[in-house]
């Protein structure tokens, strides 16, 4: 019934749009260091942390110190997580007695979780202990999200300040973001998820007797072992922090992570919530709310168009299956309880936002339904994108759009009262192109090496899509997969880890550097020669710039992958 699906989409968009302002202005208050409703609880903890860590709250860093602090914070995260993974068997809370991760898998996983990617070459329920999940992976779910948001804060300050080198204090921003924003939202979300059946316990795995013994290849299977664990607490931050790493192998397709149609809707909502609200935070902090809404509308417009394509394609059928006399929707890899609408909403949201949680196996989606998530990632994750990183990447695209438009119509390139000059353009280009270059290089390497090609599961054009998806996902820090690709090989563990590292830190450092350059500039009040960046013509122009960069870079790959597969499928080959 398409009507109920359309209602679901509309309610989703309205609900998200209604929450952009309240959450966005709350976050602006937090970032500006103002008092909030939660100060009573968290302010004493905050002060205590600064005291022990010897941090002066009023001290501000220049771009270099800010960038180094960010890298130190992430490096500590990497070392701690890597050690937890490798030493797993010696640590507590391991009721199933899992061994430590292999070195290459531990390297890949640690990189994946500190970069907010959550690419997973393992399955949680048969590899990771509760200690690993809770103190290793979930901690990085918080801290990698914090990193993204704090880098965005530096950029915002670059615009709001003039003739200074001060960009704020990385440690203060990190503590405040964790305590006042991510923590309370996660508790709320986890409680709602638990009420619906998402599990949260520390029991060892439970054995139940099957209602009917099952005979499989001559052997009788009479029991089912149900994995347990602290899932809800991890699920909440996995989504809110746009991380996407599942507690279980099946991620949000697993009934213990995502039990019904409501939770599916709610989880998609949690994914998009903070990235959407940050647009308002941006507008509020630069004292130009219209600009914030303009960015929100650009993102929302692209989101709606891609959701429409995804949903329309998913309503179609696979002629190779339906000609066998099969009726009903094509649902290989999908759960009955979510429906085509819920699955389309989730697949679009999780790739528009750089989350990477999946409620269906994207590898099994129809060709165009699998292409939409690929394209959303290849557009550098700017359709909302990861927490913080989505918006700062979008701002890099705005700078490019302003510059190009300025060249074409002879106006001075300015954005928010700051002149766009050589340094800003270089950094914007680096931010916008890094992931695309990584995808092209690594996809090519994978295709000309035996180690790369031998991991493919599905033959023909679909195999190209699998590899393209893997590097689109890792270079853009999304983390979802065409999971048929066997990713737990030395080749893929190393190459995807490099793609994740470069895809995360080169743009982040470039943004901090650009923030420093912007903060030092004078404020230039808008004149007749200034291009208005909060009006519809510029919004349309911005969308075109984003699409042209994405489409031109990857058109041939998409033609050889999903488009070709779609043609072959419709022909019945």
């Amino acid at each position, binding site marked *: 019934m398409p009507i109920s699906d359309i*209602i679901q989409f509309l309610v989703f968009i309205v609900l998200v749009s209604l929450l952009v302002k309240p959450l966005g202005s709350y976050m602006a208050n937090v970032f500006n260091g103002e008092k909030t409703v939660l100060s009573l609880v968290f302010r004493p903890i905050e002060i205590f942390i600064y005291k*022990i*860590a*010897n941090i002066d709250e009023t001290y501000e860093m220049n771009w270099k110190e800010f960038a180094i*602090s960010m890298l130190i914070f992430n490096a*500590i995260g990497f070392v701690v997580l890597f050690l937890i993974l490798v030493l797993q068997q010696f640590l507590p809370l391991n009721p199933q007695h899992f061994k430590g991760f292999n070195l290459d898998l531990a390297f890949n996983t640690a990189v994946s979780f500190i970069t907010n990617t959550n690419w997973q070459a393992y399955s949680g329920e*048969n590899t990771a202990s509760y200690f690993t999940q809770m103190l290793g992976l*979930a*901690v990085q779910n*918080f801290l990698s999200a914090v990193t993204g948001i704090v880098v965005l804060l530096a950029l915002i300050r670059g615009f709001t300040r003039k003739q200074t080198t001060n960009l704020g204090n990385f*440690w203060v921003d990190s503590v405040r973001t*964790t*305590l006042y924003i991510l923590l309370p939202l*996660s*508790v709320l979300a986890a409680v709602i998820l*638990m*009420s*619906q*059946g*998402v599990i*949260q316990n520390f029991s060892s795995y*439970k054995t*139940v007797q099957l*209602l*009917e013994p099952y005979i*499989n290849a001559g052997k009788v299977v009479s029991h*089912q*072992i*149900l994995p347990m664990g602290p899932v809800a*607490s991890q699920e909440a*931050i996995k989504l809110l922090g746009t991380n996407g790493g599942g507690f*279980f192998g*099946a991620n949000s397709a*697993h*009934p213990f992570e995502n039990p019904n*149609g*409501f939770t599916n809707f709610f989880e998609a909502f949690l994914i998009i919530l903070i990235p959407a609200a940050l647009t308002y935070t941006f507008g509020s902090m630069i004292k130009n709310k219209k600009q914030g809404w303009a960015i929100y509308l650009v993102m929302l417009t692209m989101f709606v168009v891609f959701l429409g394509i995804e949903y329309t394609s998913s309503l179609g059928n696979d002629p190779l*299956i339906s000609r*066998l*006399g099969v*009726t*009903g*929707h*094509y649902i*290989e890899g999908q*759960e*009955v*309880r979510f*429906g085509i*609408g*819920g699955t389309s909403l989730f697949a679009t949201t999780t790739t528009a936002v750089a989350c990477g949680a999946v*409620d269906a*196996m994207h590898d*099994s989606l129809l*060709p165009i339904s699998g292409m939409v998530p690929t394209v959303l990632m290849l557009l550098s994750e700017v359709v909302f994108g990861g927490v913080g990183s989505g918006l700062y990447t979008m701002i890099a695209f705005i700078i490019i759009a302003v510059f190009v438009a300025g060249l074409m119509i002879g106006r001075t390139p300015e954005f928010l009262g700051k002149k766009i000059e050589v340094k800003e353009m270089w950094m914007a280009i680096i931010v916008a192109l890094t992931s695309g270059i990584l995808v092209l290089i690594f996809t090519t390497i994978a295709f000309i090496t035996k180690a790369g090609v031998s991991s493919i599961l599905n033959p023909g*054009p*679909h195999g190209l899509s699998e590899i393209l998806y893997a590097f689109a996902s890792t270079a853009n820090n999304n983390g979802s997969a065409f999971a*048929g690709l066997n990713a737990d090989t030395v080749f893929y563990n190393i190459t995807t880890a490099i793609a994740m590292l470069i895809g995360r830190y080169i743009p982040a450092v470039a943004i901090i550097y650009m923030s420093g350059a912007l903060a030092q500039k004078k404020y230039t009040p808008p004149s007749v020669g200034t291009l208005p960046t909060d009006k519809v013509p510029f919004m349309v122009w911005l969308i075109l710039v984003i699409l042209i960069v994405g489409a031109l870079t990857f058109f041939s790959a998409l033609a050889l992958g999903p488009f070709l*597969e779609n043609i072959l*499928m419709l022909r019945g080959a």
Partner: protein
Amino acid sequence: MKNLKSGLIVFAFLFIITGVVYPLIVTGIGQLVFKSQVNGSLIYIENKPVGSKLIGQPFQNPGLFWSRPSSTDDFPYNALSSGGSNLGPTNQILVKRVEERIVYLRKNDFKGQIPSSLVLGSGSGLDPDITPQAAYSQIPRISMYTHIPQNVLKSLVSKHIKKRQLGFLGHDRVNVLELNLALIKMEKDYAGK
């Protein structure tokens, strides 16, 4: 150097707050308020767990409703290894598997058109549900083996349909394990008559 020290201390605090305090608070709330849900929504019969409402089980008995196919490792509905087949829509292996499943259904007295949820596997491999059509379509076979009249089975299925939440979230579905538990109970009643 100063930043490294500050960083280590800030990290330690946030590690404890997000990695220990937070999950313990959530667990506390869950175990107090949502005891059944957070422990796996288990179904008990005579104090013995027979499964979870949320995790599907495989069935072969022609007198019971069957679940969706599952491609989990080792055997279907292996909850230790959730995941889908990951076969793409044009993969001949997928087509062949669907053909085999159709042959198997036909061999077991399945008549009429084949609903997709009986031949296409889920993403988790643990899907507890089938569509209402897939449940109705199995009634002739079950009636033949259990001697329960078809209209009785029909009303049993329709009683077990879970509608979309709030009318627009998700999809209508039937939980196979719950349906079969009700069916087994009904069978006993019929055998008693």
